[in-house]
């Protein structure tokens, strides 16, 4: 069920009405049922995967908790008998058992994900390593909806539990809701149990302002997705589908269009998901903070797909970089006189592992591997250049506040990020490299006025609609960036203004949305992750 389909709106509408009709203590049960109904729409045969993850993770969470409970009871009982050393040893032994369970869950959940998502990729590549032709080795498994999202969310929960951050959810069905809460299945965000659980399980009374605000957010999301992303994608597929014809300047156009499409599609979808949740009284974490206003790559990764980045930071980057083994090795290097190496060792290793994983998370292909590694590489490079930057700003102290300079940094970062996204846009690494070179070698400015742009499936009207819509999104983002909100500006106005503003946006979506027959129903780019 696509998020822009009538059936999704009908589904959400029915859920919404029922949600506020039934007693509040049953609301979470309705959400659970709705989530599973939603899941069934994507294919009943996928139900097994999410159920397996839910059941096994539940068992592990109970085991980890049980071990902790017994440990506490025993420590209390033998408070006087245990020496400090004995206590420590006992605690360590319990921890070890907990760890065993956690590792089992890790292997199980990531195992499922790995086989389904990466099996094909690994088999074909290993095959080619041994000289097999590859074709006969392929096996195809369709991706269950949201598997990357729920697997990561569930694993985050188990790791937090292992770290003793909170008590587990003992009600299996409540836990199942945490795993399967349907708006998140579509494309995240990846929530943490601590913040989401309260909202999920406690009932919510109808709050007109929350609901209105949620619906407005959804509408804005539909605007971004249907008017901009789904429109621009026509031109995109033309360019990427035939890189030989659409080379040179078209590569630049495609690169920028793709960056726009990616953001509008993904963040628009997230707006819909967060808005729908808000209308149900549930707060989800923000996933974007106007990433294209970033002044550097590092800044960008603090603003794009935040929930995933945080996941990798909390559960991969820090554990690796602060592991005793890594620290010990760094120490040894320092003792041997390699001060610089010692300082870099932990950060570099962890960064590259994280970015390799982030790349792989995005998809089973070399494009993403290269994309991830390049991101890691450039992040580390700019880290190395940090002192140079600092000296630069010491020399030109006024530049840091200079609007023009900052605009340059923003544009530079945007172009750089768009460039990296080409690995996602084109189907193979070699095409990316070839297109990239062609962008400079056969650049023709005339493409912009000789009508070539009208040959990629977008009409003049499309370009006007895109231009106006992008200006609208830009203005809204600009206000947000300045800490203000267009929404509250509208809310402060008289009723006719409010009606015209929101109804106007609704009409824009209805009239200018690229939906229905004649437009291919496009799937979320992030759906299949």
């Amino acid at each position, binding site marked *: 069920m696509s998020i822009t389909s009538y059936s999704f709106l009908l589904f959400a509408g029915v859920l919404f009405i029922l949600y506020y009709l039934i007693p509040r203590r049953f609301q979470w049960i309705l959400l659970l049922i709705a989530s599973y109904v939603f899941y069934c729409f994507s294919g009943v045969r996928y139900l097994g995967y999410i159920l397996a993850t839910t059941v096994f993770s539940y068992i592990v969470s109970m085991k980890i908790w049980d071990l902790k409970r017994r440990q506490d009871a025993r420590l209390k009982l033998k408070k006087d008998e245990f020496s400090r050393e004995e206590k420590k040893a006992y605690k360590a032994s319990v921890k070890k058992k907990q760890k065993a369970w956690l590792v089992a869950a890790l292997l199980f959940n990531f195992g499922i994900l790995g086989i389904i998502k990466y099996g094909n990729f690994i088999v074909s590549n290993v095959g080619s390593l041994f000289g097999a032709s590859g074709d006969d080795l392929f096996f195809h498994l369709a991706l269950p909806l949201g598997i990357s999202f729920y697997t990561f969310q569930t694993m985050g929960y188990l790791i937090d539990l292992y770290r003793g951050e909170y008590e587990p959810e003992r009600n299996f069905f409540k836990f199942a809701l945490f795993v399967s809460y349907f708006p998140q299945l579509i494309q995240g965000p990846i929530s943490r149990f601590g913040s989401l659980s309260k909202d999920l399980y406690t009932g919510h009374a109808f709050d007109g302002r929350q609901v209105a605000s949620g619906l407005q957010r959804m509408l804005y999301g539909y605007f971004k997705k249907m008017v901009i992303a789904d429109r621009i994608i026509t031109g995109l597929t033309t360019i990427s589908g035939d890189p030989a014809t659409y080379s040179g300047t078209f590569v630049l156009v495609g690169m920028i269009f793709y960056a726009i499409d990616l953001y509008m599609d993904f963040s628009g979808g997230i707006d819909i998901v967060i808005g729908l949740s808000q209308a149900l009284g549930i707060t989800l974490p923000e996933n974007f903070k106007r990433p294209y206003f970033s002044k550097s790559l590092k800044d960008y990764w603090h603003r794009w797909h935040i929930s995933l980045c945080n996941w990798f930071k909390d559960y991969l980057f*820090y*554990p690796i970089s*602060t592991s005793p083994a890594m620290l010990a090795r760094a120490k040894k290097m320092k003792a041997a006189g390699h001060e610089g190496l010692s300082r870099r060792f932990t950060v570099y290793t962890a*960064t590259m592992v994280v970015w390799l994983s982030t790349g792989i998370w995005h998809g089973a292909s070399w494009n993403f591997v290269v994309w991830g590694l390049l991101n890691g590489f450039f992040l580390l490079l700019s880290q190395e250049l940090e002192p140079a930057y600092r000296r630069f700003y010491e020399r030109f102290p006024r530049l840091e506040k200079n609007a023009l300079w900052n605009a340059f940094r923003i544009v530079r970062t945007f172009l750089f990020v768009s460039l990296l996204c080409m690995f996602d846009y084109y189907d193979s690494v070699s095409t990316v490299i070839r297109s990239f070179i062609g962008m400079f070698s056969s650049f023709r400015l005339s493409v912009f006025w000789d009508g070539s742009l009208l040959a990629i499936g977008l009409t003049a009207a499309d370009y006007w609609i895109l231009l106006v819509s992008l200006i609208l999104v830009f203005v809204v983002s600009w206000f947000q960036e300045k800490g203000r909100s267009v929404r509250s500006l509208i809310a402060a106005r008289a009723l006719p203004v409010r009606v015209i503003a929101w109804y106007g946006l609704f009409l824009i979506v209805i009239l200018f949305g690229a939906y229905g027959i004649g437009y291919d129903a496009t799937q979320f780019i992030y759906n299949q992750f």
Partner: protein
Amino acid sequence: MDTLLEILNDLHPDVDFETCDTLIDDEILDSFDIVSLIAEINNEFDVNISAKDIIPENFNSAQALWALIERLEDEE
């Protein structure tokens, strides 16, 4: 505490660590800084700050961080 402040000042000479208590909230320390910091602390004080301790409350100010180090030393 002085050693800690020294480490912090090495990292960001431009920040007044004695008074600042929004090191994380204001994004003064990023993840790279935190990891270098943990490595340095591990060197100087011989305590292991593990991933689960990396939460804003522990890293927002030098005092908080010092309290964490003392607590971890105590546990050792």
